[in-house]
Protein backbone atom coordinates (compact mmCIF):
# COMPACT_ATOMS: atom_id res chain seq x y z
CA UNK A 1 0.00 0.00 0.00
CA UNK A 2 1.35 3.41 -0.93
CA UNK A 3 1.46 6.19 1.61
CA UNK A 4 -1.39 8.01 -0.12
CA UNK A 5 -3.74 5.00 -0.25
CA UNK A 6 -2.93 4.32 3.39
CA UNK A 7 -3.81 7.93 4.17
CA UNK A 8 -6.98 7.68 2.11
CA UNK A 9 -7.96 4.65 4.16
CA UNK A 10 -7.35 6.53 7.39
CA UNK A 11 -9.07 9.82 6.67
CA UNK A 12 -12.56 8.29 6.95
CA UNK A 13 -14.12 4.83 7.00
CA UNK A 14 -16.65 5.70 4.30
CA UNK A 15 -15.94 7.46 1.01
CA UNK A 16 -18.12 8.25 -2.00
CA UNK A 17 -15.22 7.34 -4.28
CA UNK A 18 -15.20 3.81 -2.86
CA UNK A 19 -18.69 2.94 -4.06
CA UNK A 20 -17.68 2.39 -7.71
CA UNK A 21 -15.00 -0.01 -6.44
CA UNK A 22 -17.65 -2.48 -5.26
CA UNK A 23 -17.03 -4.71 -8.29
CA UNK A 24 -13.41 -5.17 -7.18
CA UNK A 25 -14.69 -7.45 -4.42
CA UNK A 26 -14.61 -10.13 -7.14
CA UNK A 27 -10.81 -10.27 -6.91
CA UNK A 28 -10.89 -12.34 -3.72
CA UNK A 29 -13.64 -14.78 -4.67
CA UNK A 30 -14.67 -14.36 -8.31
CA UNK A 31 -17.23 -17.15 -8.42
CA UNK A 32 -19.02 -15.96 -5.30
CA UNK A 33 -19.02 -12.40 -6.62
CA UNK A 34 -20.46 -13.53 -9.92
CA UNK A 35 -23.26 -15.36 -8.12
CA UNK A 36 -23.94 -12.39 -5.90
CA UNK A 37 -24.04 -9.82 -8.70
CA UNK A 38 -26.19 -12.03 -10.95
CA UNK A 39 -28.62 -12.59 -8.13
CA UNK A 40 -28.58 -8.90 -7.20
CA UNK A 41 -29.39 -7.89 -10.77
CA UNK A 42 -32.20 -10.45 -10.94
CA UNK A 43 -33.66 -9.19 -7.66
CA UNK A 44 -33.99 -5.66 -9.03
CA UNK A 45 -35.42 -6.64 -12.40
CA UNK A 46 -39.03 -5.71 -13.14
CA UNK A 47 -41.22 -8.46 -11.71
CA UNK A 48 -44.32 -8.67 -9.58
CA UNK A 49 -43.01 -5.41 -8.10
CA UNK A 50 -41.93 -2.75 -10.54
CA UNK A 51 -38.42 -1.32 -10.62
CA UNK A 52 -39.47 1.91 -8.88
CA UNK A 53 -41.13 0.05 -5.99
CA UNK A 54 -38.03 -2.10 -5.54
CA UNK A 55 -35.87 0.98 -5.56
CA UNK A 56 -37.95 2.57 -2.76
CA UNK A 57 -37.75 -0.65 -0.71
CA UNK A 58 -33.98 -0.66 -1.23
CA UNK A 59 -33.82 2.96 -0.09
CA UNK A 60 -35.79 2.16 3.06
CA UNK A 61 -33.69 -0.90 3.87
CA UNK A 62 -30.52 1.12 3.24
CA UNK A 63 -31.63 3.41 6.05
CA UNK A 64 -32.54 0.51 8.32
CA UNK A 65 -29.09 -1.02 7.87
CA UNK A 66 -27.56 2.48 7.78
CA UNK A 67 -25.36 1.83 4.77
CA UNK A 68 -24.04 5.13 3.36
CA UNK A 69 -23.14 3.48 0.04
CA UNK A 70 -26.67 2.16 -0.43
CA UNK A 71 -28.24 5.43 0.72
CA UNK A 72 -26.18 7.28 -1.91
CA UNK A 73 -26.91 4.76 -4.65
CA UNK A 74 -30.62 4.35 -3.96
CA UNK A 75 -31.32 8.05 -3.38
CA UNK A 76 -30.13 8.64 -6.93
CA UNK A 77 -31.75 5.49 -8.25
CA UNK A 78 -35.11 6.44 -6.73
CA UNK A 79 -34.92 9.90 -8.33
CA UNK A 80 -33.97 8.39 -11.68
CA UNK A 81 -36.91 6.01 -11.47
CA UNK A 82 -39.28 8.94 -10.99
CA UNK A 83 -39.74 9.02 -7.21
CA UNK A 84 -39.81 12.38 -5.50
CA UNK A 85 -38.57 13.58 -2.14
CA UNK A 86 -42.00 13.20 -0.49
CA UNK A 87 -42.21 9.54 -1.47
CA UNK A 88 -38.59 8.93 -0.51
CA UNK A 89 -39.07 10.58 2.88
CA UNK A 90 -42.13 8.42 3.54
CA UNK A 91 -40.07 5.34 2.62
CA UNK A 92 -37.43 6.35 5.18
CA UNK A 93 -40.20 6.82 7.77
CA UNK A 94 -41.37 3.28 7.06
CA UNK A 95 -37.84 2.05 7.80
CA UNK A 96 -37.66 4.19 10.93
CA UNK A 97 -41.10 3.09 12.12
CA UNK A 98 -40.20 -0.57 11.73
CA UNK A 99 -36.90 -0.04 13.53
CA UNK A 100 -38.57 1.92 16.31
CA UNK A 101 -41.50 -0.46 16.46
CA UNK A 102 -39.18 -3.44 16.52
CA UNK A 103 -37.44 -2.06 19.61
CA UNK A 104 -40.67 -1.15 21.30
CA UNK A 105 -42.43 -4.42 20.63
CA UNK A 106 -39.59 -6.20 22.45
CA UNK A 107 -40.98 -4.44 25.47
CA UNK A 108 -43.45 -7.33 25.50
CA UNK A 109 -40.54 -9.64 26.29
CA UNK A 110 -39.35 -7.26 28.97
CA UNK A 111 -42.83 -7.34 30.47
CA UNK A 112 -42.91 -11.16 30.35
CA UNK A 113 -39.60 -11.25 32.28
CA UNK A 114 -40.84 -8.70 34.78
CA UNK A 115 -43.95 -10.74 35.37
CA UNK A 116 -41.99 -14.00 35.55
CA UNK A 117 -39.41 -12.67 37.99
CA UNK A 118 -41.38 -10.10 39.89
CA UNK A 119 -44.07 -10.69 42.43
Amino acid at each position, binding site marked *: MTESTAAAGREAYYHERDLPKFGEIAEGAPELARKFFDWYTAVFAEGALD*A*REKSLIALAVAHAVQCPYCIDAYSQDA*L*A*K*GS*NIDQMTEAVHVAAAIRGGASLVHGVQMRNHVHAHGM
Partner: protein
Amino acid sequence: MGRVLPTLHKREAGLASAVAQRARLAEVPLARTFEESLATSGLFPLRPTRLEILQVNVGRRCNQTCKHCHVDAGPDRSEVMPRAVLEAVLAFLAQHRIPRFDITGGAPELHPDFREMVVRAARGGAHVMHRCNLTAILLPNYADIPALLAEHRVEVIASLPYFQARETDAQRGEGVFEESIEGIRRLNALGYGRGTGLELNLVANPVGTFLPGSQAGLEAMWKRELKRRFDLDFDHLFTITNMPISRYLEFLDERGRTVDYMTRLVNAYNPAAAAGVMCRNTLSVGYDGRLFDCDFNQMLDLGLDAAVPQWIFDATPERLAERAIVVGPHCYGCTAGAGSSCGGAVA
Protein backbone atom coordinates in the same frame (compact mmCIF):
# COMPACT_ATOMS: atom_id res chain seq x y z
CA MET B 1 -35.08 30.42 -8.12
CA GLY B 2 -36.60 33.40 -9.87
CA ARG B 3 -38.64 33.08 -13.02
CA VAL B 4 -35.84 34.11 -15.34
CA LEU B 5 -32.13 34.48 -14.73
CA PRO B 6 -29.45 36.12 -16.83
CA THR B 7 -27.90 33.71 -19.35
CA LEU B 8 -24.20 32.75 -19.26
CA HIS B 9 -23.84 35.02 -22.26
CA LYS B 10 -25.34 38.01 -20.44
CA ARG B 11 -23.29 37.34 -17.30
CA GLU B 12 -20.16 36.91 -19.43
CA ALA B 13 -19.65 33.73 -17.43
CA GLY B 14 -16.54 31.62 -17.82
CA LEU B 15 -18.45 28.95 -19.73
CA ALA B 16 -20.33 31.37 -21.99
CA SER B 17 -18.13 30.58 -24.98
CA ALA B 18 -18.07 27.28 -26.87
CA VAL B 19 -14.27 27.30 -26.71
CA ALA B 20 -14.32 27.49 -22.91
CA GLN B 21 -16.86 24.67 -22.70
CA ARG B 22 -14.80 22.45 -24.97
CA ALA B 23 -11.69 23.20 -22.94
CA ARG B 24 -13.52 22.35 -19.71
CA LEU B 25 -14.72 19.03 -21.12
CA ALA B 26 -11.24 18.23 -22.43
CA GLU B 27 -9.84 18.60 -18.89
CA VAL B 28 -12.02 15.83 -17.48
CA PRO B 29 -10.00 12.61 -17.23
CA LEU B 30 -11.92 9.76 -18.88
CA ALA B 31 -11.15 6.04 -18.97
CA ARG B 32 -11.63 6.04 -22.77
CA THR B 33 -12.18 8.77 -25.32
CA PHE B 34 -15.50 8.67 -27.15
CA GLU B 35 -13.63 7.80 -30.32
CA GLU B 36 -12.07 4.78 -28.57
CA SER B 37 -15.46 3.64 -27.33
CA LEU B 38 -16.89 3.93 -30.85
CA ALA B 39 -13.94 1.97 -32.19
CA THR B 40 -14.58 -0.90 -29.75
CA SER B 41 -18.15 -1.01 -31.11
CA GLY B 42 -16.92 -0.96 -34.73
CA LEU B 43 -18.47 2.48 -35.24
CA PHE B 44 -15.45 4.71 -35.70
CA PRO B 45 -15.45 6.90 -37.70
CA LEU B 46 -19.14 7.48 -37.12
CA ARG B 47 -21.01 7.74 -40.42
CA PRO B 48 -24.48 9.06 -41.21
CA THR B 49 -27.10 6.57 -42.34
CA ARG B 50 -29.88 8.37 -44.22
CA LEU B 51 -30.91 12.00 -43.79
CA GLU B 52 -34.41 11.85 -42.36
CA ILE B 53 -34.65 14.87 -40.09
CA LEU B 54 -33.75 18.47 -40.78
CA GLN B 55 -33.52 20.15 -37.38
CA VAL B 56 -33.38 23.92 -37.45
CA ASN B 57 -32.44 26.05 -34.51
CA VAL B 58 -34.26 29.27 -35.33
CA GLY B 59 -32.70 31.33 -32.56
CA ARG B 60 -31.64 31.50 -28.95
CA ARG B 61 -34.41 33.71 -27.58
CA CYS B 62 -36.62 32.11 -24.97
CA ASN B 63 -39.06 33.33 -22.34
CA GLN B 64 -37.46 30.88 -19.88
CA THR B 65 -33.95 30.25 -18.60
CA CYS B 66 -33.93 26.60 -17.56
CA LYS B 67 -30.92 25.52 -15.53
CA HIS B 68 -30.09 22.59 -17.79
CA CYS B 69 -30.38 24.48 -21.09
CA HIS B 70 -27.61 23.46 -23.49
CA VAL B 71 -28.47 26.42 -25.73
CA ASP B 72 -28.00 29.05 -23.00
CA ALA B 73 -31.29 30.44 -24.27
CA GLY B 74 -33.15 33.28 -22.58
CA PRO B 75 -34.92 36.60 -23.03
CA ASP B 76 -31.59 38.40 -23.24
CA ARG B 77 -30.41 36.49 -26.35
CA SER B 78 -30.89 38.18 -29.69
CA GLU B 79 -29.73 35.58 -32.23
CA VAL B 80 -32.53 34.89 -34.69
CA MET B 81 -32.59 33.16 -38.06
CA PRO B 82 -32.72 35.79 -40.82
CA ARG B 83 -35.11 35.57 -43.74
CA ALA B 84 -32.49 34.48 -46.28
CA VAL B 85 -31.49 31.49 -44.15
CA LEU B 86 -35.09 30.55 -43.58
CA GLU B 87 -35.69 30.52 -47.33
CA ALA B 88 -32.62 28.36 -47.89
CA VAL B 89 -33.79 25.92 -45.19
CA LEU B 90 -37.27 25.61 -46.71
CA ALA B 91 -35.80 25.22 -50.19
CA PHE B 92 -33.46 22.43 -48.97
CA LEU B 93 -36.36 20.68 -47.25
CA ALA B 94 -38.57 20.80 -50.35
CA GLN B 95 -35.91 20.09 -52.94
CA HIS B 96 -34.49 17.04 -51.19
CA ARG B 97 -37.83 15.82 -49.83
CA ILE B 98 -36.55 15.47 -46.28
CA PRO B 99 -39.33 13.60 -44.45
CA ARG B 100 -39.15 15.36 -41.08
CA PHE B 101 -38.70 19.02 -40.17
CA ASP B 102 -37.84 19.62 -36.52
CA ILE B 103 -38.06 23.23 -35.29
CA THR B 104 -36.14 24.07 -32.16
CA GLY B 105 -34.60 27.07 -30.37
CA GLY B 106 -34.87 28.85 -27.88
CA ALA B 107 -38.62 29.06 -27.97
CA PRO B 108 -39.23 28.75 -31.72
CA GLU B 109 -42.59 30.55 -31.48
CA LEU B 110 -40.75 33.77 -30.71
CA HIS B 111 -39.31 33.80 -34.22
CA PRO B 112 -41.29 36.37 -36.24
CA ASP B 113 -41.71 33.95 -39.16
CA PHE B 114 -42.49 30.83 -37.12
CA ARG B 115 -46.05 30.58 -38.40
CA GLU B 116 -45.02 30.89 -42.02
CA MET B 117 -42.26 28.33 -41.56
CA VAL B 118 -44.72 25.80 -40.12
CA VAL B 119 -47.30 26.35 -42.84
CA ARG B 120 -44.86 26.16 -45.75
CA ALA B 121 -43.04 23.09 -44.43
CA ALA B 122 -46.31 21.27 -43.74
CA ARG B 123 -47.81 22.20 -47.12
CA GLY B 124 -44.65 20.87 -48.75
CA GLY B 125 -45.45 17.49 -47.22
CA ALA B 126 -42.91 17.28 -44.40
CA HIS B 127 -43.85 15.95 -40.98
CA VAL B 128 -43.30 19.06 -38.87
CA MET B 129 -42.18 18.85 -35.24
CA HIS B 130 -42.30 21.77 -32.85
CA ARG B 131 -40.18 21.77 -29.67
CA CYS B 132 -42.46 23.60 -27.31
CA ASN B 133 -41.71 24.87 -23.81
CA LEU B 134 -45.47 25.05 -23.03
CA THR B 135 -45.31 28.60 -21.68
CA ALA B 136 -44.52 30.71 -24.76
CA ILE B 137 -47.87 29.66 -26.25
CA LEU B 138 -49.60 31.34 -23.30
CA LEU B 139 -48.08 34.75 -24.06
CA PRO B 140 -50.64 37.16 -25.53
CA ASN B 141 -49.04 37.43 -28.96
CA TYR B 142 -48.62 33.68 -29.36
CA ALA B 143 -51.95 32.32 -28.12
CA ASP B 144 -53.04 31.54 -31.70
CA ILE B 145 -50.15 29.11 -32.19
CA PRO B 146 -51.69 25.89 -30.79
CA ALA B 147 -54.60 26.14 -33.25
CA LEU B 148 -52.17 26.73 -36.11
CA LEU B 149 -50.13 23.68 -35.07
CA ALA B 150 -53.30 21.58 -34.93
CA GLU B 151 -54.45 22.78 -38.33
CA HIS B 152 -51.17 21.66 -39.90
CA ARG B 153 -50.98 18.47 -37.84
CA VAL B 154 -47.65 19.46 -36.35
CA GLU B 155 -46.20 17.05 -33.76
CA VAL B 156 -45.67 18.89 -30.49
CA ILE B 157 -42.73 17.83 -28.34
CA ALA B 158 -43.04 19.61 -25.02
CA SER B 159 -40.87 19.72 -21.94
CA LEU B 160 -42.18 18.58 -18.59
CA PRO B 161 -39.43 17.21 -16.37
CA TYR B 162 -41.80 16.18 -13.57
CA PHE B 163 -45.50 16.03 -12.73
CA GLN B 164 -45.15 18.31 -9.71
CA ALA B 165 -44.30 21.98 -9.32
CA ARG B 166 -41.32 21.64 -6.99
CA GLU B 167 -39.15 19.62 -9.34
CA THR B 168 -40.29 21.31 -12.56
CA ASP B 169 -39.87 24.83 -11.18
CA ALA B 170 -36.44 23.97 -9.74
CA GLN B 171 -35.26 23.24 -13.28
CA ARG B 172 -37.34 25.63 -15.37
CA GLY B 173 -38.16 28.62 -13.13
CA GLU B 174 -40.77 29.60 -10.59
CA GLY B 175 -44.34 29.23 -11.77
CA VAL B 176 -43.37 27.35 -14.94
CA PHE B 177 -45.08 24.15 -13.83
CA GLU B 178 -48.47 25.75 -13.37
CA GLU B 179 -48.24 27.44 -16.75
CA SER B 180 -47.02 24.23 -18.41
CA ILE B 181 -50.12 22.45 -17.11
CA GLU B 182 -52.22 25.20 -18.66
CA GLY B 183 -50.26 24.79 -21.91
CA ILE B 184 -50.99 21.03 -22.00
CA ARG B 185 -54.64 21.75 -21.17
CA ARG B 186 -54.93 24.01 -24.21
CA LEU B 187 -53.26 21.45 -26.44
CA ASN B 188 -55.51 18.67 -25.11
CA ALA B 189 -58.55 20.86 -25.77
CA LEU B 190 -57.54 20.95 -29.44
CA GLY B 191 -57.31 17.16 -29.51
CA TYR B 192 -53.54 16.88 -28.94
CA GLY B 193 -52.57 13.72 -27.06
CA ARG B 194 -56.15 12.47 -27.11
CA GLY B 195 -56.08 9.83 -29.83
CA THR B 196 -57.08 12.20 -32.64
CA GLY B 197 -53.78 11.72 -34.48
CA LEU B 198 -52.48 15.06 -33.18
CA GLU B 199 -49.35 13.93 -31.43
CA LEU B 200 -48.27 15.43 -28.11
CA ASN B 201 -45.07 13.98 -26.71
CA LEU B 202 -43.48 15.09 -23.47
CA VAL B 203 -39.80 15.33 -22.71
CA ALA B 204 -38.35 14.66 -19.26
CA ASN B 205 -34.78 15.67 -18.47
CA PRO B 206 -33.59 14.64 -15.01
CA VAL B 207 -33.91 17.41 -12.42
CA GLY B 208 -30.43 16.96 -10.98
CA THR B 209 -27.18 15.17 -11.58
CA PHE B 210 -28.61 11.68 -12.10
CA LEU B 211 -29.26 9.84 -15.38
CA PRO B 212 -32.80 9.17 -16.59
CA GLY B 213 -34.51 5.92 -15.61
CA SER B 214 -36.39 3.60 -17.96
CA GLN B 215 -38.45 5.56 -20.46
CA ALA B 216 -41.33 3.06 -20.41
CA GLY B 217 -41.50 3.07 -16.61
CA LEU B 218 -41.46 6.86 -16.39
CA GLU B 219 -43.99 7.22 -19.21
CA ALA B 220 -46.48 5.01 -17.36
CA MET B 221 -45.95 7.05 -14.21
CA TRP B 222 -46.27 10.47 -15.95
CA LYS B 223 -49.47 9.29 -17.69
CA ARG B 224 -51.02 8.05 -14.48
CA GLU B 225 -50.11 11.14 -12.46
CA LEU B 226 -51.04 13.76 -15.08
CA LYS B 227 -54.39 12.04 -15.57
CA ARG B 228 -55.09 11.66 -11.86
CA ARG B 229 -53.97 15.13 -10.81
CA PHE B 230 -55.00 17.28 -13.79
CA ASP B 231 -57.01 15.09 -16.21
CA LEU B 232 -54.33 15.63 -18.88
CA ASP B 233 -53.25 13.28 -21.68
CA PHE B 234 -50.25 12.86 -23.95
CA ASP B 235 -48.86 10.23 -26.30
CA HIS B 236 -45.27 9.37 -25.37
CA LEU B 237 -42.67 10.44 -22.86
CA PHE B 238 -39.12 10.93 -24.15
CA THR B 239 -36.40 10.72 -21.53
CA ILE B 240 -33.41 12.88 -22.44
CA THR B 241 -30.07 12.83 -20.66
CA ASN B 242 -28.79 16.27 -19.65
CA MET B 243 -25.84 17.19 -21.82
CA PRO B 244 -22.67 18.46 -20.12
CA ILE B 245 -22.81 21.66 -22.15
CA SER B 246 -23.46 25.30 -21.40
CA ARG B 247 -25.71 25.94 -18.37
CA TYR B 248 -25.83 22.30 -17.29
CA LEU B 249 -22.04 22.18 -17.42
CA GLU B 250 -21.91 25.26 -15.21
CA PHE B 251 -24.41 23.62 -12.84
CA LEU B 252 -22.23 20.49 -12.64
CA ASP B 253 -19.14 22.60 -12.02
CA GLU B 254 -20.89 24.58 -9.28
CA ARG B 255 -21.86 21.33 -7.59
CA GLY B 256 -18.36 19.90 -8.07
CA ARG B 257 -19.98 17.03 -10.00
CA THR B 258 -18.54 17.35 -13.51
CA VAL B 259 -16.00 14.54 -13.23
CA ASP B 260 -18.48 12.29 -11.48
CA TYR B 261 -21.15 12.94 -14.13
CA MET B 262 -18.79 12.36 -17.05
CA THR B 263 -17.48 9.17 -15.42
CA ARG B 264 -21.00 7.94 -15.03
CA LEU B 265 -21.77 8.64 -18.68
CA VAL B 266 -18.63 6.79 -19.76
CA ASN B 267 -19.41 3.81 -17.50
CA ALA B 268 -22.94 3.63 -18.94
CA TYR B 269 -21.71 3.59 -22.56
CA ASN B 270 -24.00 1.30 -24.54
CA PRO B 271 -22.90 0.19 -28.04
CA ALA B 272 -26.54 -0.29 -29.11
CA ALA B 273 -27.28 3.31 -28.16
CA ALA B 274 -24.14 4.42 -30.03
CA ALA B 275 -25.38 2.71 -33.20
CA GLY B 276 -28.64 4.66 -32.91
CA VAL B 277 -27.38 8.18 -32.12
CA MET B 278 -29.53 10.84 -33.77
CA CYS B 279 -26.72 12.55 -35.71
CA ARG B 280 -26.76 9.57 -38.08
CA ASN B 281 -30.13 10.57 -39.55
CA THR B 282 -30.34 14.24 -38.58
CA LEU B 283 -28.81 17.43 -39.91
CA SER B 284 -28.76 20.47 -37.64
CA VAL B 285 -28.92 24.02 -39.01
CA GLY B 286 -27.81 27.04 -36.97
CA TYR B 287 -29.67 30.35 -37.02
CA ASP B 288 -27.07 31.70 -39.44
CA GLY B 289 -27.33 28.75 -41.84
CA ARG B 290 -24.23 26.91 -40.70
CA LEU B 291 -24.55 23.12 -40.57
CA PHE B 292 -23.79 20.77 -37.70
CA ASP B 293 -24.14 17.09 -36.88
CA CYS B 294 -26.52 17.93 -34.03
CA ASP B 295 -27.77 20.79 -31.87
CA PHE B 296 -25.19 19.91 -29.21
CA ASN B 297 -22.30 20.21 -31.64
CA GLN B 298 -23.90 23.46 -32.77
CA MET B 299 -23.73 24.91 -29.25
CA LEU B 300 -20.13 23.72 -28.91
CA ASP B 301 -19.36 25.33 -32.26
CA LEU B 302 -18.14 22.02 -33.66
CA GLY B 303 -18.81 22.38 -37.38
CA LEU B 304 -19.14 19.55 -39.88
CA ASP B 305 -16.24 17.49 -41.20
CA ALA B 306 -14.19 19.96 -43.28
CA ALA B 307 -14.47 17.68 -46.33
CA VAL B 308 -18.14 18.59 -46.90
CA PRO B 309 -20.09 21.86 -47.40
CA GLN B 310 -20.55 23.83 -44.19
CA TRP B 311 -23.62 25.91 -45.04
CA ILE B 312 -27.24 25.19 -45.93
CA PHE B 313 -26.83 27.39 -49.02
CA ASP B 314 -24.50 25.00 -50.83
CA ALA B 315 -25.09 21.60 -49.25
CA THR B 316 -26.75 18.53 -50.74
CA PRO B 317 -27.64 15.30 -48.91
CA GLU B 318 -25.31 13.41 -51.27
CA ARG B 319 -22.29 15.52 -50.33
CA LEU B 320 -23.19 15.44 -46.65
CA ALA B 321 -23.44 11.64 -46.72
CA GLU B 322 -19.68 11.53 -47.29
CA ARG B 323 -18.88 13.08 -43.93
CA ALA B 324 -17.55 11.57 -40.75
CA ILE B 325 -19.58 12.80 -37.78
CA VAL B 326 -17.61 15.08 -35.49
CA VAL B 327 -17.59 13.66 -31.96
CA GLY B 328 -16.23 14.60 -28.55
CA PRO B 329 -16.57 13.73 -24.87
CA HIS B 330 -20.06 15.28 -24.69
CA CYS B 331 -21.25 12.52 -27.06
CA TYR B 332 -21.23 10.14 -24.09
CA GLY B 333 -24.48 11.90 -23.14
CA CYS B 334 -26.14 10.27 -26.17
CA THR B 335 -24.89 6.75 -25.51
CA ALA B 336 -25.41 6.26 -21.76
CA GLY B 337 -27.79 3.48 -20.76
CA ALA B 338 -30.73 3.31 -23.13
CA GLY B 339 -29.26 6.30 -24.99
CA SER B 340 -30.71 9.74 -25.53
CA SER B 341 -31.81 11.74 -28.55
CA CYS B 342 -34.33 14.41 -29.41
CA GLY B 343 -36.76 11.50 -29.70
CA GLY B 344 -35.83 10.07 -26.29
CA ALA B 345 -34.17 6.69 -25.63
CA VAL B 346 -32.74 4.91 -28.67
CA ALA B 347 -31.80 1.41 -27.44
